[in-house]
């Protein structure tokens, strides 16, 4: 168990050590400053922009940014629906997998476009290799969309008054060519060395040692999995995601995947500090996020390592912890740790089945997504956190009786209105979705019997988890839920769209409005926003908003389950 604990600390430290220089590099890329890699990337980008008729140096205001973003996302949704609903006759389908139904294709496309990767299908039977390669494309571009939106925020908060916030395509393309793609290639090679498959042949039939005939699914796995983690997407190549021994062959590959998903969210925080020339701000943000992260992760590791009390009562030994839904090569400690990394960040990949984790672990996994800004997804984590900063500035401003301002810009009624709407949208989507589903289920338990895989409180948690995961664009699930139905595909699909684009547009709008305002020089009376005190203030705001919104629903699910078990 000792070496497993060291393994966890090691993973976290390496991620941080890599993220600081990467953050500096990203700030340079987004600032358009030359880097040593210019010679490689300039011609490639010139080709991409040339064919697409885009001038990457045209300045946009925040509205033009959002328009460009929405249009290109719309193109991806149309294309995705077309491919998934016709995959049976399109090329690269050696296993002869069928077309997706319209509602499943809707859900799947939306969910990959919005960087969520909620999967109501299994990779082995639900998609062709062509579809997998297209989903892999979406994993790149959805991550880059989030990053580009966050850079608009960076630009807006640089100390000057302006409407010009750079070019969306510039940020978007460079996020891919200079950050996501090169790092993915490196990770893919590490994965290949660990024995991850990369082929285009269909299922392999074989006779096992005992003489039964089985089949083994395979495909282009090693190119898919790096961006799945690096882009905080989380959609599994196989049905059981990173628990699958071909998708995550060893403890080492598990560490690489873990570092890959922490990398960009960490780096974005540091890139922000370098970009606006306030490195102390980065550390304040990182500090708040890390405290929140540890408060969720440590109890999960402890819970999973201690095992299931109901199984302990049967009189067998649980030295390795709670092993239902977990893999031997990864172990309970690293699975518990991963379950929080993947939920605080919006990855949503799993290396153990969350449905079978202990009640309090399940609660922390949900809480991580309910907060959705302790690190958070590629770019969007920082945007979510920005909302809490604005709210904290406003509340502290009221407490000390000064005009609230952030980085020399006055925060006024309009900004606060948007921030409040975005902060309330998240609980609204989760609770309304869960309430509607519970209503349907309770009034017609026979018709919807296939929904829930577990009775009682845990069954309620399965529904609550699904909407939380959708609204947070996370994509993990209590996978026992029978979710490939018209109701679940459409209702979560709608939650996914709203939970993605409004929390991007809201913060970018606030930033754009702030950018246009006159800069107020700092004075003795200015509320300092890069201090520990202010960090605690933000933390308190986050805690109050989530606790008040979600505690009642958590009490009905995991908390009630806890008291039946212990």
């Amino acid at each position, binding site marked *: 168990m000792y070496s497993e604990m060291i393994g966890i600390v090691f993973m976290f430290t390496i991620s941080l050590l890599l993220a600081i220089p990467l953050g500096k590099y990203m700030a340079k890329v987004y600032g358009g400053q030359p880097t040593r890699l210019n010679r490689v990337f300039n011609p490639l980008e010139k080709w991409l922009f040339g064919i697409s008729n885009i001038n990457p140096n045209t300045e946009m205001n925040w509205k033009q940014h959002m328009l460009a973003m929405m249009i290109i996302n719309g193109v991806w949704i149309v294309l995705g629906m077309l491919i998934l609903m016709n995959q049976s006759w399109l090329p690269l389908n050696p296993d002869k997998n069928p077309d997706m139904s319209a509602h499943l294709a809707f859900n799947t496309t939306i969910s990959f476009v919005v960087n969520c990767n909620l999967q109501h299908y*299994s990779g082995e039977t639900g998609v062709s290799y062509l579809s997998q390669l297209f989903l892999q494309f979406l994993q790149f571009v959805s991550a880059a969309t989030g990053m580009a939106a966050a850079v608009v925020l960076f630009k807006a908060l640089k100390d000057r008054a302006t409407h010009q916030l750079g070019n969306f395509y510039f940020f978007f393309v460079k996020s891919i060519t200079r950050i996501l793609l090169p790092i993915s290639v490196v990770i893919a090679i590490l994965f290949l060395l660990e024995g991850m498959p990369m082929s285009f042949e269909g299922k392999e039939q074989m006779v096992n040692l005992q003489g039964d005939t089985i089949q083994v699914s395979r495909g282009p796995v090693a190119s898919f999995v790096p961006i799945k983690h690096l882009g905080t997407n989380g959609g599994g190549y196989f049905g059981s995601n990173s628990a699958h021994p071909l998708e995550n062959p060893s403890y080492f590959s598990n560490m690489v995947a873990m570092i890959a998903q922490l990398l960009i969210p960490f780096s974005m925080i540091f890139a922000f500090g370098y970009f606006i020339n306030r490195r102390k701000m980065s550390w304040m943000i990182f500090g708040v996020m890390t405290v929140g992260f540890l408060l969720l992760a440590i109890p999960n590791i402890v819970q999973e390592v201690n095992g299931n009390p109901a199984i302990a009562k049967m009189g067998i030994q649980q030295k390795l912890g709670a092993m239902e839904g977990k893999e031997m090569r990864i172990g309970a400690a690293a699975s518990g740790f991963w379950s929080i990394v993947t939920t605080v960040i919006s990855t949503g990949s799993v290396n153990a089945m969350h449905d079978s984790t202990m009640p309090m672990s399940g609660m922390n996994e949900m809480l991580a997504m309910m907060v959705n800004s302790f690190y958070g997804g590629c770019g969007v984590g920082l945007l979510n956190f920005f909302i809490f900063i604005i709210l904290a500035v406003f509340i502290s401003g009221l407490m000390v009786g000064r005009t609230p301002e952030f980085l020399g810009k006055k925060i006024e009624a309009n900004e606060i209105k948007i921030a409040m709407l975005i902060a309330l949208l998240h609980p609204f989507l989760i609770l309304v979705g869960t309430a509607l589903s519970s209503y349907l289920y309770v009034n017609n338990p026979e018709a919807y019997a296939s929904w829930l895989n577990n009775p009682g409180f845990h069954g309620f948690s399965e529904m609550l988890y699904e909407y939380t995961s959708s609204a947070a664009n996370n994509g993990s699930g209590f996978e026992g839920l029978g979710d490939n139905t018209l109701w679940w595909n459409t209702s979560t699909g709608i939650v996914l769209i709203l939970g993605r684009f409004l929390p991007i547009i809201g913060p970018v709008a606030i930033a754009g409005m702030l950018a246009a305002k006159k800069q107020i020089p700092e004075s003795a009376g200015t509320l300092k926003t890069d201090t520990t005190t202010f960090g605690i203030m933000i933390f308190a705001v986050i805690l109050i908003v989530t606790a008040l919104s979600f505690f009642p629903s958590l009490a009905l699910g995991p908390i009630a389950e806890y008291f039946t078990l212990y």
Partner: protein
Amino acid sequence: MKTHVFSAIKLTLVMLILLSGIYPLLIWGAAHLTPDKGQGKRIIANGQSYYKNIGQTFTQGQYFYSRPSAVSYNAAGSGGSNKGPANPDYLATVQARIDSFMVHNPGIHKKDIPAELVTASGSGLDPHISVEAATIQVKRISQIRNIPEANLNELIRKHTEQPMFGPSVINVLALNISLDQLK
């Protein structure tokens, strides 16, 4: 607006070529330079090429059992049981597995049965068990195969993998193949 739409379509198409074409082909090419050639780690035995990382079902008494699986180790699919920790049906299943294990392994103590032998893995394809899970089966296999316990313990020791970080594990398939070759 119109220019945005055309640019978006064209940019999408070139990005598709780059990210769904060139990038996977590059990785596919790189795979052929690695020891496994992009086919996954393999074990060759009995004229068959097995996937080392895909667990197999072992229910016959003469072999070391693998863990219970929600998909019966058929890698055409994958998945866990997704049963909650307090689910009464699930707990009854676990109890039944314990009872069955006790029947098939006479002479062992219940308190020594490791939980991983009676709980299903996340993928249903877990290729590993722990050292304790192998050791507790030595008595049974020794009786069925007529091999001294010491030899089996030696075999287990040889197959124990301890990575730098993480739990120590035994690949059940590799262990059972060596077991077949023991006599």
